[in-house]
């Protein structure tokens, strides 16, 4: 029996649940927070979604069948909670995808917990130009350091499609940043 299986047993046992869940929070709280934060952009939103994620994890643990690792399963829940949050916000604000992408940078700048300098804002602007799904894939790979195999379980997409989207995103970002720099040089 693997240590993860034992840990899951502790998580669902009445006797060890509290201690095990504390450990789970220590292990995953920050990682999931950053994963969520990049999807929902602001700290306040990320905080709400993070709480919902862990409550859902807690409720769903007895039904977890271990078809994927606990790590991947929790990322999937965090991703789904984030998407649900984004979709419900879209409905509330009647935003189209285009205006939402434009709003990405504005929302980011308005967040008091964004402290980006010029270079960071430049990268964020470039990321905002990517189609949503492609941006998520790039962020998951580049910043959350997820494996393509894990992303298949989280996103429910084919590995080939994810790889293509990631490499296209990398190419686009490099090209866009280079263009911006060339423009700055020519203007400067």
């Amino acid at each position, binding site marked *: 029996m693997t240590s993860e299986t034992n840990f899951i047993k502790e998580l669902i046992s*009445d006797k060890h*649940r509290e201690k095990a*869940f*504390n450990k789970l*929070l*220590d*292990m995953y*709280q*920050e*990682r999931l*927070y*950053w994963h969520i*934060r*990049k999807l929902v952009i602001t*700290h306040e939103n990320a*905080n709400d979604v*993070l*709480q919902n994620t*862990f*409550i859902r994890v*807690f*409720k769903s643990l007895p039904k977890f069948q271990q078809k994927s690792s606990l790590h991947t399963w929790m990322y999937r829940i965090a991703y789904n909670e984030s998407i649900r949050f984004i979709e419900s916000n879209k409905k509330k604000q009647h935003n189209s995808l285009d205006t939402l992408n434009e709003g990405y940078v504005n929302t980011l700048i308005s967040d008091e*917990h*964004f*402290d*980006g*300098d010029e270079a*960071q*804002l430049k*990268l*964020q602007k470039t990321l905002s130009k990517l189609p949503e799904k492609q941006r998520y894939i790039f962020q998951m790979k*580049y*910043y*959350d*350091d*997820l*494996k393509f195999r894990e992303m298949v379980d989280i996103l429910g997409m084919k590995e080939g499609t994810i790889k293509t989207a990631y490499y296209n995103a990398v190419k686009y970002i490099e090209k866009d940043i280079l263009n911006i720099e060339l423009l700055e040089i020519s203007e400067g």
Partner: protein
Amino acid sequence: MKKTAKTEGNVFSIVNKIEETHKKDLGLKVPSDYFSKSKADILSKLPSEEKKKGIKRMYFIVPIAAAITILFTLTFLKPNLLPSFNNEIVLDTIEKIKNNNLVEADMLTLTDDISIASLFVEDDKIDAFVDKHIVEDIIYDELNSN
């Protein structure tokens, strides 16, 4: 833009690297002491085992309480609504059927206990009888009780 976080190795050292990368590359920050406060928040919002057990217990308590209430009401407040298994009525009804002294439709009106008599009558005839008499009786009782 150089990648610094790696999945291999200790989970806790990865977390620090992830935070560093997010701050360094993306300019994202969190309020000081946020994660310990958030952890306490999450733990306080988890559904507790006692609450769950309480809810489970309610699944049994509610129907039992409802059954006791109904029995109490029928026994003490509306005793006439309970079917009375009066042996004399049963034997009398069976005797009449044996002797062919009773046609089915009459059974319902002549016997005092409809629930017993109805065992010997076809469903459609019971429905017709209920429509004709029982509903009228209920309305009459309701009017008199007010």
